[in-house]
């Protein structure tokens, strides 16, 4: 690629091995610079979150009389969390998000793996055409077609139901078909072929052999897709305007009205949304890194 030269970092990584070009003094300076840059970047990443944590424990008076970096008087003041959870409809948001998440993920795994099974394990006349259709669809950015998708969701009678989000999460997901296809291609056919010789039908093979073999790919899809659904704003915002159907994104978005300048309550709402993500990240770190690397490069 021609445009790479501006991307080169100014400071070369320090040279630890005792190779001639860099003297020990220079190497030490470079090491210090390296750690400075890492610490600096970490501060930039963490600071905006830390102030939210601080604000979420402050009382309203405290908030207006102290600066953003001042610690709260009590670290056990969970009033803002209670307000956000109850008055801010976050509870309902979590319920709706969970319902949509579970159904969409189960559907995605089934649909994606079935499509991958058909495309990888069968020879049929329109195979190339079907693959082409899926490929071509990846070129269409979802955000551009919402204008027309809206009419379809409306015509199907899904507008203002949870099914609108579920249908769209299932219907526009080509990434998981890719991940499954890629994974299935790496699995030897021996097992399913010998099952077929013993007389097992395609459905039996799919459920008894293919699906269990695909566990690692299923984990990847569930993680990548799960995070995307948990964080999705546009689809629920556009298709589920009813207050009762608020998901966590849209519920938090609605904080802007009633809680206007009550930053301590908004901060608590933000924390309520982030904490599950943080727990999932800490628990599943390795899978998450692998999932994103696998999901985006294939």
């Amino acid at each position, binding site marked *: *690629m021609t445009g790479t030269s501006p991307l080169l970092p100014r400071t070369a990584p*320090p040279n630890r091995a005792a*190779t001639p070009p860099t003297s020990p003094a220079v190497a030490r300076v470079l090491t210090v610079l390296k750690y400075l840059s890492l610490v600096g970047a970490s501060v930039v990443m963490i600071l905006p979150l830390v102030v939210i944590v601080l604000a979420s424990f402050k009382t309203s008076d405290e908030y207006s009389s102290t600066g953003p970096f001042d610690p709260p008087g009590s670290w056990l003041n969970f009033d803002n969390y209670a307000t956000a959870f109850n008055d801010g409809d976050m509870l309902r948001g979590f319920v709706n998000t969970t319902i949509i998440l579970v159904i969409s993920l189960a559907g995605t795994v089934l649909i994606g793996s079935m*499509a991958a099974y058909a495309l990888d394990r069968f020879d049929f006349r329109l195979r190339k055409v079907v693959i082409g259709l899926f490929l071509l669809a990846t070129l269409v950015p979802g955000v551009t077609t919402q204008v027309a998708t809206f009419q379809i969701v409306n015509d*199907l009678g899904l507008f203002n139901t949870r099914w609108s989000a579920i249908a769209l999460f299932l219907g526009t997901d080509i990434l998981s078909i890719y991940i499954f296809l890629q994974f299935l291609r790496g699995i030897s056919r021996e097992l399913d072929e010998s099952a077929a010789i013993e007389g097992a039908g395609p459905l039996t093979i799919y459920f008894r052999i293919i699906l269990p073999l695909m566990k690692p790919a299923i984990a990847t899809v569930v993680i990548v897709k799960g995070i995307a659904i948990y964080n999705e704003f546009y689809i629920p915002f556009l298709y589920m305007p009813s207050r009762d159907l608020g998901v966590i994104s849209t519920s938090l978005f609605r904080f802007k009205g009633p809680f206007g300048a009550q930053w301590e309550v908004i901060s608590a709402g933000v924390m309520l*949304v982030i904490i599950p993500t943080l727990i999932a990240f800490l628990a599943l770190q390795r899978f998450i890194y692998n999932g994103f*690397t696998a999901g985006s490069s294939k």
Partner: protein
Amino acid sequence: MTPTPTTNRAPAAPAGTATPDRAQPSHTGWRRPRRVSLGNAATPYLFLLVPLALLAVFTYVPVANMFWYSVTSWNGLSPTKEYVGADNYVEIFTRPELFRVFWVSLYYVGASFFQLAAALYFATILSFNVRFRNLFKGILFFPYLINGVAIGMIFLYFFTPGGTLDTALGLIGADGISRQWLGDPDTVNFSLAGTSVWRYMGLNFVLFLGAIQSIPHHLYEAAQIDGANRWHQFRYIILPGIRPIIGLSFILAISGSLAVFEIPYIMLQGANGSETFVIQTVNMAFKFHKIGLASAMAVVLLVIILLITWLQRRIVPDEKVNLS
């Protein structure tokens, strides 16, 4: 600004990847490598029925409809759609205020250069031995996982007068440069593009890091024997080794910059000069009920993004991004 690979769409995958290599694995013994036929000819179609139906209903029909609506003056409600020819397209290109919002994207394009450079820098230094490596990796990546609305709120507070940024500037004695970060049309897009870098840098970083770590280790050792320092290793091993993923990230960053929606919409609803093309399209369709004009705008964006993707295929023809 980088479209996340998780936004329901697969990223533009290199052309070769989805067509499986039909070369059969060499079977042992005498068995001829041939496929055992399963069920009847209809079986694969039955498995594909639901995926294809969804693909048609939620991708192809909307795209076709979009083209059709774009030559009508439909308002989204009336039962009839009046054909108006190319009027909507003429309107887009002759009303400067409609097309001008594309310039807002340039802030995000510029920011994505910085974003990719920073991601490449941190991926490179963290691919070598560094203390607290996993901690740094986690800190740099975590923002990418955070809910977009939460990020919007965090940065509204960050940029609010007397908020995080102003206080931090005060601590280092630079409060002189404090201003209405989100209220001033001259700075608002810098603030929002910065937010976007904060959000998406971690993804690029982790992708680059994964690619760097998949470079065979003996290459570094051989280079070190030849007296190459870290800079040489970066220049002649790492950079060529991860070129495909850099190219792909670059294209995704640019097409993502043209389709920016969440951050400016969540934070400001496009106010103060932060309106992007997508926000304008959404408002045109769902606020002003001009479905015809909005569809034409969506078609224009689609064509531009397809063009960029096509250019990418030309520039990086058959290079597969292979990280595993």
